[in-house]
C-alpha cells in the first residue's frame, strides 16, 4: 500500500501543480472583483453582457455547424475511400492522417492566401465573416471524423455486405441499414471530438483575422492579453472549460459504447 502511494504521489503532485493549481487560480480570480471583493459580482456582470452572450452563442453555433459539416463531409469521403475501389485510395487515407498532424492555423493561413482580400480567389468579405471561419474549421476538422469512420468501415466484413446483397438489398439499403448503423458509435465519437476542438478553436479564428467573429476563446484572449481585464477573462475561461468538460463527458460516454448500452436498454 505504502509502495503504491510512493509511485502515485509524484505524478499526482505534478498533475495538481501544473493543472489543478492554475485552474483553481482562474476560478478564484473570477470570483474577485477589481476592488478586491469576493463574490459573484464579476460573474453577473460578464454573463449578462451582450458581448459575452453574443460570443457564447457564436462559439456554439460555429462549433455545431462545423461538427455537422465535418460529419457529413467526413462520412461521405470515408465511404468513398472505403467502398469505392479506385487507385490511390490507400494513399488518400494516409494523407488524411497527415492532415491530423497539421497545426490548425496553417489552414487559416492557406485560406488567407487563397480567398483573402489580396488572395488568388479573393471573394470580398466572405473569408472575414462567420462563414469563412466555419468553412476553415470544416476543412481542418473533417479528417478528425474521417479517421474513426474509416476504421469503423474497415470493420464491416465483405461477407456481411455480400450476404446483405444476396438477401435482395440494394446498395443504398446496405449503406443505411448495415454500414452506417455499425459505424454509428465511431461517427458519434468523431463528432464529439470535433465539437470539443471546434469549441476551443483559437488559431483559425485569430489567423483568419475576422474582426467581427468574436468567439469565447477570442474573448478570453482580448480581455486577458489586450485589455488586461483579468477577472472577466477568467469568468469566460471557466465557462469555456465547463462547456468542454461537459462535451468531453459525452465523448467518453459515446466512446465507451454508451450508445450501444442505450440501444440495448431500449
Amino acid at each position, binding site marked *: 500500500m505504502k509502495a503504491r502511494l510512493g509511485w502515485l504521489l509524484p505524478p499526482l503532485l505534478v498533475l495538481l501543480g501544473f493543472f489543478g493549481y492554475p485552474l483553481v487560480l482562474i476560478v478564484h480570480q473570477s470570483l474577485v472583483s477589481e476592488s478586491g471583493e469576493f463574490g459573484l459580482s464579476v460573474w453577473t456582470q460578464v454573463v449578462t453582457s451582450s458581448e459575452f452572450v453574443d460570443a457564447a452563442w457564436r462559439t456554439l453555433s460555429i462549433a455545431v455547424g462545423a461538427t455537422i459539416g465535418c460529419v457529413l463531409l467526413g462520412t461521405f469521403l470515408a465511404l468513398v475511400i472505403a467502398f469505392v475501389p479506385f487507385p490511390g485510395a490507400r494513399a488518400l487515407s494516409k494523407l488524411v492522417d497527415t492532415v491530423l498532424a497539421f497545426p490548425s492555423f496553417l489552414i487559416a493561413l492557406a485560406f488567407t492566401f487563397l480567398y483573402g482580400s489580396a488572395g488568388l480567389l479573393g471573394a470580398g468579405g466572405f473569408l472575414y465573416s462567420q462563414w469563412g471561419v466555419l468553412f476553415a474549421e470544416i476543412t481542418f476538422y473533417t479528417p478528425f471524423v474521417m479517421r474513426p469512420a474509416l476504421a469503423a468501415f474497415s470493420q464491416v466484413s465483405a461477407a456481411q455486405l*455480400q450476404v446483405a*446483397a*444476396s438477401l*435482395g438489398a*440494394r446498395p443504398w439499403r446496405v449503406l443505411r441499414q448495415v454500414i452506417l448503423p455499425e459505424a454509428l458509435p465511431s461517427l458519434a465519437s468523431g463528432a464529439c471530438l470535433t465539437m470539443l476542438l471546434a469549441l476551443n478553436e483559437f488559431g483559425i479564428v485569430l489567423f483568419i483575422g475576422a474582426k467581427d467573429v468574436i468567439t469565447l476563446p477570442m474573448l478570453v484572449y482580448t480581455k486577458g492579453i489586450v485589455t488586461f481585464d483579468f477577472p472577466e477573462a477568467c469568468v469566460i475561461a471557466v465557462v469555456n472549460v465547463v462547456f468542454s468538460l461537459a462535451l468531453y463527458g459525452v465523448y467518453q460516454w459515446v466512446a465507451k459504447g454508451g450508445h450501444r448500452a442505450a440501444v*440495448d436498454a431500449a
Partner: protein
Amino acid sequence: MTAAVELRGVSVHFGQTCALSPLDLTVARGETLAMLGPSGSGKSTALKALAGFVRPSAGRVLLDGEDVTDLPPHRRGLGVVVQSYALFPHMRVADNVAFGLKAKKTPRAEVARRVGEVLDMVGMGAYARRFPRELSGGQQQRVAIARALAIRPNVLLLDEPLSALDAALREDMVAELLRLRAELPDTTLVYVTHDQSEALALADRIAVMCNSELVEIGSCEELYHRPAQAFTASFLGASNLIPVELINADGSRVRFGDTELSASPTGVVRGKSVALGVRPHRVGVHAEGTAGSFPALVRGIQWRGSGFRLDLELAGAHEVRAEVPSMDGLPGVGGTVGVSIPDGCPLLAVP
C-alpha cells in the same frame, strides 16, 4: 427439365491469377451438390460467381434456364450462408432474419409470420430477441441459415458453413442440415466444403475440385467406390496410391513388383501412368514372410482408440498407410511386416 443451376464455361481471373478454370456444371432442382476440395481449389470462387459476388472473366451463369451473368447479387434471389456467419451485429436475431423480407418489401404481418416460421425450423424460435453476440457459434450459424431461408430461395448456397465450429458440434449440425434438407425437397443446395465426411453425408453428387479445376463429378458412391482420378481417391477416403503397370489392355490385370493383381478398371486409357487406389483399412498387414505379401518397414504407429494406424514403407520407398484393429503378432517401429493388397481395387489415372 431445366437445371436449377448451370455454369457454362465459367472462369474467373484476378489480374494474372487464375482462380477458376473454365467450369461446366449443372445442378438439378432439389439436388444437393457438394463442391469438395482443399483450400485454393476454386470451389469458393465458383460459388461466388454463382452468387454474383465476383464477375466471371468468361462463361455464363444460368438459374432456372435464365442467364443471370449480368445481374447484381440483389436480383438473383439466392440464399447465401458463409463460414463467418456474417450476421448483422447491431440487429437482433429477428431483425437479421427479417432483413431480406424487408428488402423485398414484404407486408409486415407476413414478415413476422415468416421470421417465426424459419426460426422455429432451425430451432432458434426462443432466441428472436437476442443479439448475435449473445449466441454461440452454432446458434449464430443456425440464425444465418434461417436468414437465408426466410426469402424462400430456390437455391441455397453454403460456403464452408460448419468450418468455424468444433468437431462435435459439426456432427450435430450435419444431422440438423439433413433434417432441414428433408423439409425443403424443392430447394437446390450447393454446399462448398473441404471436409469429405460432410460432403458424403449431405450430398447427392460431389464435384471434386483441385487447383482451380474440376477433377471429377459424380454420385457419392461412384466417387467413393469407383473414383477415376487419383486425386479423388486420395482426397475422398485417403486412399493409398500404389503405382502399377498394366498387364492387359482393359486394365483388369496389373503388376506391382513381381506380383500380379486383379484391378477394377475405371476407363483408364492405356499408356497413361496408373495407380491402384487402396484404402487404409483394406491394406492387409501380416507377420513378415506371409505368402503373397510384400515386405514393408514399420515407420510409425499411432493408436487411434478403435485401432492402430501404421505408416509403412514398401520396397522402392513407396509409402503406404494401413489401419488395423490390433497389433497382436506385429512388430513395433523399425520392424518388418508383410503387406498384401486385395484384388479389385480401383485403377486410377495419375496426372
